């Protein structure tokens, strides 16, 4: 039976009006500007860009304001907005070796050319609440400077291992990579497709999966070969001109892990690699991504089967997208009156059959 359900329009309009009022909050307190969010909640902005899969700090800041700070809701807004824009093509692959680094650390080699650069990190802070920040009109903090000698181009740490042949090559694939936003995900996926899914995947989900591999659910025993954050130039072909030009600059976090050996009858043992690359400053996400990337490569590297969640490509790729997840999860709170009506009828019928059978006994 089809039952048309109408109504609730006024209730919905009023709910949205109240939402707008709640968003603004206490009017005794100054309104937050999009520019303030962009500048002072940068890491939230970066997360929305990464998982929204659209690099545009102003839009991400606006989405955070509109979503009242709910980052998954903000990511949803960005994903929806993206679909309204025409796609002009693809950039050339970014050259992270030429990154203008603000942070670059290696946990495997102490003395790397270019040095260990801590950058604006939370590491080594004591994680004590700083009540001074609650006061207004603080003195402007000022960073220290030093001669930037040797920071023009900081080479990838992996290059050093590569020279000795101790580590596998960076990873092969098609010249034109697949794109999840154009073609539905098909399994088994190529590594390129997996990396795209992970790059836009939920940070919390990837963090938990990466952690699970460290605790023994699909052990990858990763060392951080290198973690770097900084600006890279993006470059694209201009078809009318027949050459490529630099069109801007984006900030990226990149992580490469060195993992235990592969090797076979024909190939001597070599370190293997996991890779993470994320929009903005997000080293937790890039680190998680590189561990999960490595875990998913078990078959290609000839490792024995191990039913750990992080090694299950279908499980990981089908569940890492927080917009797909939240869409399906949250839809169950919307009216399911008719579905439920049929369940009700079924259970009444089953009960009456069971009860009458009992009476007969």
């Amino acid at each position: 039976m089809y039952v048309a359900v109408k109504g609730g329009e006024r209730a919905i309009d009023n709910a949205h009006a109240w939402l707008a009022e709640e968003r603004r909050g206490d009017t005794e307190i100054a309104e937050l500007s999009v520019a303030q969010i962009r500048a002072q909640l940068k890491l939230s902005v970066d997360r929305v860009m990464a998982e929204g899969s659209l690099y545009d700090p102003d839009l991400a800041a606006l989405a955070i304001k509109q979503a009242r700070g709910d980052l998954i809701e903000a990511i949803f807004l960005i994903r929806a907005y993206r679909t309204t824009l025409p796609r002009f093509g693809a950039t050339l692959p970014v050259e992270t070796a030429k990154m203008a680094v603000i942070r670059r650390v290696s946990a495997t080699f102490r003395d790397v050319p270019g040095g260990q650069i801590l950058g604006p990190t939370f590491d080594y802070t004591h994680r004590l609440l700083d009540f001074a920040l609650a006061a207004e009109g603080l003195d402007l903090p000022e960073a220290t400077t030093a001669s930037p000698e040797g920071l023009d181009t900081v080479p990838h740490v992996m290059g050093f291992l590569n020279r000795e042949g101790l580590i596998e090559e960076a990873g092969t694939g098609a010249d034109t990579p697949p794109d999840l936003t154009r073609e539905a995900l098909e399994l088994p996926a190529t590594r390129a497709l997996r990396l795209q899914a992970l790059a836009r995947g939920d940070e919390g989900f990837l963090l938990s999966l990466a952690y699970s591999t460290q605790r023994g659910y699909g052990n990858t025993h990763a060392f951080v070969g290198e973690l770097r954050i900084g600006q890279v130039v993006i470059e694209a072909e201009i078809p009318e001109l027949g050459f490529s030009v630099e069109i801007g600059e984006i900030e990226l976090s990149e992580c490469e892990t060195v993992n235990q050996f592969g090797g076979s009858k024909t190939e001597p043992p070599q370190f293997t690699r996991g890779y993470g690359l994320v929009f903005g400053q997000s080293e937790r996400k890039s680190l998680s991504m590189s561990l999960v990337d490595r875990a998913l490569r078990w078959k290609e590297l000839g490792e024995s089967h191990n039913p750990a969640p992080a090694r299950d490509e279908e499980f990981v790729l089908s569940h890492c997208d927080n917009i797909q997840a939240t869409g399906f999860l949250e839809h169950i709170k919307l009216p399911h009156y008719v579905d439920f009506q049929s369940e009700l009828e079924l259970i009444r019928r089953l009960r009456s059959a069971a009860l009458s059978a009992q009476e007969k006994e």
Partner: protein
Amino acid sequence: MSAMNHTGPSPAKDLTGARRAWMGTLARARPEALAALLPLPLPDHHDLRAPETGTMMVQGRIGGSGAPFSLGEVTVTRATLHLADGTTGHALVQGRDRTHARHAALVDALMQTDAAERIRETVLTPLTEAEAARREGRAAKAAATRVEFFTLVRGDDK
């Protein structure tokens, strides 16, 4: 009428290398900085393709140097215009700022005319310097966080 004193397109020569460089400088410039440096009034021009915003898929490389993969999109705006003398200017710039794209296309066109020297001096050079200063400033802060290791000599080794 054109406020610039250019007399027409320069004789054809291969500007590719130089043009790539100035288009990059214009794209990476802060839009308000570029706007502030433009010659006023702006020379006559008309749109061949009005500024249009879209996205491009940014590609990364597996392992930093391997095969490409789709990382995520970036907003971009493109524009094409003609000067009164027919010189064509193109722009493709990151972001959604239509004025930025139009200004970049305008300077791209002017740089192909006799006005190039003056535009380089008054627009491109200040933008290049500002960019270098920005980069240098960040690099100098990064350099201050570079770890200098030293080895402690253990007392019992003496």
